[in-house]
């Protein structure tokens, strides 16, 4: 990425434009120079951080990484995270709901591995739910990665 100062404002481009106009004329086939400098984007966690306004540091344009303002309360974030967890668990359970329903309707016994998997899902759901509830900061909640499941 490249940046250039134009009328007091830093403009950024994915690459140097194929045509660039400034007070010196119309420039074609620019590879470097003409006021363009590299833009260095620091790595940051989009969930809890954001980039400041772009600025010149040395010979490159870059950003500061600052904490994102989180308007939700800690409790609200936990509720949302647990809701997401339940949604994930629910979608996994749905895969084998028909087996349980069939057992209820026809008496055909559900395979033990299905029953075990569903029990394991609920156990993990409870465990993870407790972990989320125990978190003490907004950042911890937002950066808590829910596991992926691939049960039946």
């Amino acid at each position, binding site marked *: 990425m490249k940046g250039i100062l134009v009328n007091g404002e830093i403009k950024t481009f994915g690459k140097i434009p194929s045509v660039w106009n400034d007070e010196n004329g*119309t420039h074609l086939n620019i*590879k470097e*120079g003409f006021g363009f400098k590299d833009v260095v984007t620091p790595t940051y966690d989009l969930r809890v951080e954001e980039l400041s306004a772009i600025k010149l540091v040395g010979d490159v344009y870059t950003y500061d990484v600052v904490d994102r303002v989180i308007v939700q309360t800690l409790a609200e974030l936990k509720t949302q995270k647990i809701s997401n967890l339940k949604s994930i668990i629910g979608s996994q359970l749905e895969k084998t709901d028909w087996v349980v329903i069939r057992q209820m309707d026809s008496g055909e016994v559900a395979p033990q591995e299905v029953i075990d998997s569903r029990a394991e899902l609920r156990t993990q759901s409870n465990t993870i739910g407790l972990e989320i509830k125990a978190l003490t900061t907004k950042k911890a909640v937002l950066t808590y990665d829910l596991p992926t499941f691939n049960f039946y």
Partner: protein
Amino acid sequence: MAKQTIGIGTVANDGNGDPLRTAFTKANENFTEVYADGFTSYARLANEFKTSAALTTNVDFATAQVFTKTLSGATTLTFSNTSIGMVKDLVITGDFALTLPAGTTVAGVYDGTVSNLIQIVVTGATEYWYSISKAI
């Protein structure tokens, strides 16, 4: 045929002018040639409309129609003797930055790996439109 000039002597009635028939014959032949070419022909155009010239850094619109240049480094071109409505062609090669007088609009992308045809249209006192096409 070269233009035939009617002899008119040095002063009136000096007896050195062409006879009347000779004079109008010349006039007719001149007009016949002009009309035969549809009033003009490509060959009659001035060099600024029909010649190609190697370019240094100044595009003199009064000297040629096509200008050619192989860039050997970043180059800035200037224009001179422009008039509204003029159209000139630059054939440029070379993978270096090329700066033209500020143009209103540019279409196309310069490609340093091939020959590029940059057509300039003068639309105002210092206003230019550029369009770029490239060899394939």
